[in-house]
């Protein structure tokens, strides 16, 4: 995956002469493909904006930071403030959903919990599930894809059929039924920890064929490159060729499709929570909040808007960053 050097052509061309001349000046350092990609990414303002939001979300979800922010700007996510709720309608007292200095995003109808804190803790859940599920998909997908692409033949046929089977799986129905069967305690996990584990497994384990196919295709073309033959003619073993020669060339597509898979998984988690098979109440999750809001949107429209916006901004930021990363790394270029 040679990055097109035209982008930085002038500087690159000048270097060998500078070194050959050996003119006492400090030799210009060569740039790796990673450095060139970073330079290109830095110039992409939209992608950098996305990256900034993603970074902010990650920092917000770090252990300790969430609690600190919640304490400073809101109140604990599960604390009821029924004095702030209109007893007859159930909606929050005050304009714009009860937005005040104590509750920057307003308060929840009926129970009067602080929305800001619930969004914060919901972000942690969404990110954790999105990232962990992506990790599972990427690891399985990369290993399966690289093996299928490199070895070919019946290995490829078996893995390709397996991918077809996984892609044909009715994932949502499976998730709903699986959550129903799983006991309350399993593998030393209980409650919402177990739920999150189950969600990561379902989302991650059934999404690997997407990345697996991409990696398989890339490996198929890389396998035919002469540097693979060169390594083999020097006596390299298959493991060396796979992990030292081929895999480093797959870093770009893996990174790009990971960043594009995370928002998909966040959406999927939100959808499952919306359907009631995600994170159990009272723990907050964005999908669960939207689900609760469907009955109350007439009295408290902000209850739909706030978690909806949170999902929208997160997914958009990841997608913009992923697109920018793809342009910067240009995995489609030779």
């Amino acid at each position, binding site marked *: 995956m040679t990055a097109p050097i035209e982008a930085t052509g002038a500087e690159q061309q000048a270097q060998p002469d500078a070194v050959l001349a050996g003119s006492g000046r400090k030799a210009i350092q060569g740039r790796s*493909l990673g450095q060139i990609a970073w330079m290109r990414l830095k110039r992409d303002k939209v992608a950098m904006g996305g990256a900034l939001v993603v970074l902010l979300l990650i920092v917000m979800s770090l252990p300790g930071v969430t609690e600190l922010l919640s304490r400073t700007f809101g109140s604990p996510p599960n604390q009821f403030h029924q004095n702030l709720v209109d007893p007859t309608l159930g909606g929050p007292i005050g304009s714009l959903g009860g937005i005040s200095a104590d509750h920057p995003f307003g308060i929840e109808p009926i129970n009067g919990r602080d929305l800001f804190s619930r969004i914060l803790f919901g972000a942690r859940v969404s990110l954790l599930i999105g990232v962990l599920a992506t990790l599972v998909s990427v690891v399985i997908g990369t290993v399966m894809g690289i093996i299928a692409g490199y070895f070919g033949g019946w290995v490829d046929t078996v893995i390709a059929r397996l991918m077809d089977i996984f892609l044909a799986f009715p994932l949502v129905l499976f998730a709903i039924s699986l959550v129903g069967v799983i006991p309350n305690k399993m593998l030393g996990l209980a409650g919402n920890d177990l739920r999150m584990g189950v969600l990561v497994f379902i989302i991650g384990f059934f999404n690997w064929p997407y990345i697996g196919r991409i990696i398989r295709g890339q490996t198929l073309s890389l396998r035919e490159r002469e540097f693979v033959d060169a390594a*083999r003619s020097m006596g390299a073993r298959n493991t*060396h060729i796979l992990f030292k020669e081929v895999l480093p060339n797959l870093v770009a597509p893996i990174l790009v499709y990971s960043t594009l898979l995370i928002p998909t998984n966040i959406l999927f988690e939100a959808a499952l929570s919306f359907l009631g098979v995600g994170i159990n109440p009272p723990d907050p999750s964005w999908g669960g909040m939207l689900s609760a809001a469907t009955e109350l949107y007439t009295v408290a429209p902000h209850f739909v808007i706030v978690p909806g916006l949170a999902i929208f901004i997160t997914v958009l930021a990841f997608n913009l960053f992923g697109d920018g990363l793809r342009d910067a790394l240009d995995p489609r270029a030779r």
Partner: protein
Amino acid sequence: MSTTDNATGPTATDRVIPQGEVLLDVDNLGKHFPVHAGLLRRQVAAVKAVDGVSFSVRKGETLGLVGESGCGKSTTGRMIMRLLDPSFGKITFEGEDITRMSQSRLRPLRRDLQMIFQDPYSSLNPRQTVGAIVGAPFRLQKIQTENGVKKAVQELLELVGLSPEHYNRYPHEFSGGQRQRIGIARTLALKPKLIVADEPVSALDVSVQAQVVNLLEDLQDELDLTYVVIAHDLSVVRHISDRVAVMYLGKIVEVADRNDLYERPMHPYTNALLSAVPVPDPAKREGRDRIRLQGDVPSPLDPPPACRFHTRCWKAQEICKTQEPPLAELSPGHQVACHFPENTTVSATDAVAQSAVSPPATDLPTPSLRKE
């Protein structure tokens, strides 16, 4: 890059062809790629990419392997390197049969047997530094170098005319010619005895071709290398080779010393090839008659019977369609597989008459009838 010698002209001094021991011997080597079709993936046909080639390479000499695209030159080279498994035949390297040798037993032998690749843009891993690429042979073969791998790599870079400071650079920072030099440095790392060069210059600019070809020649003198150079450029082959083998559709049709071949080509196909070489001088261009071959190269899926060239040969007779001409030595060191060779004092008709009279039953599979 001080060498400015023009690659297209013949070398001024003819190198003394060493009559040393045979380093590589290829006997009736073939590669058939199966073609599968249908639900059960049954084999319905085979692409006969290489169909029984025999030649040998002596220590210190350069054998040129020429032919047009798809004639099996590269496949032959890759089989010698054991990057492809031969379908039949025998490869002997330094007296050892390596045809069916397992990759693990082959590994130590690979030090002596290396390859230069065709495309310098594809033969260097874009994610590795030059140091890692050129140093890879040392690491893969677990060879200890006196002053460490880095020093050895920098010496190699100097040997091929690059700066040792290029050690930490990435391949994308280099031009095609420089990249090919990096590839050559990697090939030389283990001090191989035989180098198979698969179209070493065809991906390069003509001006850079000369540099790389001259580099290969200098290195041969310096390091006592033996080359098998695969090329389709007749000028390059003429410049670099001691002996030349001409291939057509998976078979060798003519083998001869370089000068012999270029001055007295015997096989009609060789004649046609040589007449296609462009002549830069318009005055000289006037008098020469070009042989224009009719039609395309037949499909290697179903090559013509007997002499494979008979479908396009202007001298073809009935015998060419029924009997395969053996690769016979018609003059010292000049082997031709043709019933009606040109430029020969030896009465070709004798050979033809002989084979015509001899009953077909005694006609052994011809490729093995090799005269040394």
